[in-house]
């Protein structure tokens, strides 16, 4: 019997063959925290009595959620993390570098590796065929100290996706549709493998959007094959030697196979206050919007901003709407400055912030007022997510967000493309 991607990667890291349902201790190749979870991790390391981390060069501390810090308590947390890095030799990714998962894709994540991070969207790098999984601060403290963690090998669902994406329909629309179909707890504990022609031809940016949101239907990890797209991406980012082809065996055992065809898919939107409350954008009704936010670990890559710029070029953001543009990383900022994408967005009336999580988690840079509505390209619309439990968040693609910014109401991007 062949192996799924998870069984392959975890067997290699356990040092013996493991199968779905088994518990195993696996070594980790990369471990990271961000500024929301890191301070607790550092305190837990101290409680555990560890003075050192096992591999400082593979331990990364990202300051991305409150970057730059909006208040003294968070400045003190940043100070604690900077001092920890100095002391332990862990790598510091300071404010302005970008979101942990986005920077990890660009610099650290590789096919066939195990990555653990103290952030639920660590699964983003499943797109690079890494078994990348989010955990809490104490688990991450132990992984930092020991260089390994325990895992239950997940059962896998094969998600087979066919067809060509229609005009103005993107990976985000597919993933919102997928989560709306399987529901927020539908794939709890499962590994997802996204395969089929529509996934094989998808860009790395699109794959990262899909893997990022795997956790939104409860999945432990959302994996893509390591293939030509992966090879090209790694080459572009300057680490071609880290490419290795990887896919599940043809006779691997899947718990379930789901089949989708994107050729009839429309632009989709998740309505307040749940990620699985999904419908086509044209059925959302005439909803007036106060803020549009483009960025995050879901859609903060150059391709995303280019899609928004294609709609906003030569236009202006509607009266009464704030458009926030937050690059996912410094590289995205520089690339988008070089090709004019951010100029286009600024000319249209967008506010360009420094790279990081921006308004996503409700910490700073765009907290909503009571009763306000936001269309965001992020991955969560829970009550209170953007800092105010009395606000309303819709989730959509960068194109839908851009079209909405132009009209001031939720708008199907096909009206512009």
């Amino acid at each position, binding site marked *: 019997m062949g192996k799924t991607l998870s069984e392959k990667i975890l067997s290699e890291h356990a040092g013996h063959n493991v199968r779905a349902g088994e518990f195993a201790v696996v070594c980790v190749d990369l471990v990271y925290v961000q500024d929301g979870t890191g301070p607790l991790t550092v305190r837990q390391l101290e409680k555990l009595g560890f003075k050192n981390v096992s591999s400082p060069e593979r331990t990364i501390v990202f300051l991305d959620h409150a970057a730059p810090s909006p208040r003294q308590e968070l400045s003190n947390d940043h100070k604690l993390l900077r001092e920890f890095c100095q002391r332990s030799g862990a790598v510091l990714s300071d404010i302005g570098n970008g979101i942990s998962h986005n920077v990890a894709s660009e610099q650290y994540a590789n096919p066939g590796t195990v990555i653990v991070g103290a952030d639920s969207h660590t699964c983003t790098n499943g797109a690079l065929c890494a078994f990348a999984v989010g955990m809490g601060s*104490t688990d991450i403290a132990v992984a930092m100290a020991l260089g390994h963690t325990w895992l239950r090998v997940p059962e896998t669902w094969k998600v087979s996706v066919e067809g060509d994406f229609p005009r103005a329909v993107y990976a985000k629309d597919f993933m919102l549709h997928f989560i709306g179909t399987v529901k927020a*707890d539908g794939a709890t504990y499962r590994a997802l493998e996204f395969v089929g022609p529509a996934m094989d031809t998808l860009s790395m940016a699109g794959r990262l959007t899909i893997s990022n949101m795997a956790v939104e239907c*409860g999945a432990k990890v959302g994996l893509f094959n390591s293939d030509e797209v992966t090879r090209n991406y790694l080459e572009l980012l300057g680490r071609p030697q880290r490419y290795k082809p990887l896919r599940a065996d043809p006779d691997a055992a899947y718990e379930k196979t789901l089949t989708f065809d994107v050729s009839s898919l429309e632009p989709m939107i998740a309505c307040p206050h749940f990620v699985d409350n999904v419908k086509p954008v044209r059925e959302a009704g005439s909803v007036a919007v106060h803020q549009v936010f483009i960025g995050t670990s879901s859609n903060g890559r150059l391709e995303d901003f280019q899609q928004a710029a294609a709609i906003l070029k030569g236009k202006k953001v509607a009266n009464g709407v704030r458009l926030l543009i937050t690059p996912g990383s410094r590289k995205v900022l520089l690339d988008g400055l070089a090709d004019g994408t951010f100029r286009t967005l600024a000319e249209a009336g967008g506010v360009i912030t420094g790279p990081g999580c921006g308004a996503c988690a*409700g*910490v700073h840079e765009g*907290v909503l007022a009571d009763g306000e509505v936001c269309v965001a390209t992020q991955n969560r619309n*829970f009550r209170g*997510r953007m800092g105010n439990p009395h606000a309303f968040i819709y989730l959509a693609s960068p194109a839908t967000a851009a079209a909405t910014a132009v009209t001031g109401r939720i708008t199907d991007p096909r009206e512009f493309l």
Partner: protein
Amino acid sequence: MDKLRGRAWKFGDGISTDHIAPGRLFHLRSNLPELAKHVLEDARPEFAAALQTGDFIVGGRNFGQGSSREHAPTIIKMAGVSAVIAKSFARIFFRNCINVGLPAIILDTDTIDERDELEMDLLAGKLVNLTKGATLSFPPLPKVMATILSEGGLVEHIKKHGDFKLD
């Protein structure tokens, strides 16, 4: 472990870690006793003040979905909750509960009503609803988690064994 006893506080489906420990209080994460005063504020604003030590949180489906912030189960425990009972849990939250020494129990919560008096026997896998006179059973945790929980959480577990003890 002794029996746990307290009243039920009912919550609906899909309670997220944003409900439990909201992002707008991000700056209190290094001040957990203060953050604990706001536990679950965005789901039931009256909860934190009215909670009595030993009470149970009784949720629906997918309790603890969303962010991996371990602060969420930590402040639930700090506030004095003896266990969280739900129809199902989000994966990271479930693991975090065990790691911080907070029992997380999966069972059908439909028969439990607000303020029902509950008594839980973790080892026997039984929950007695004293108000209703009914006994519910729940399956044991996976071995590794049962060990971590019985030793008081992951920090204690690692301090005791120096590593994970899987069997």
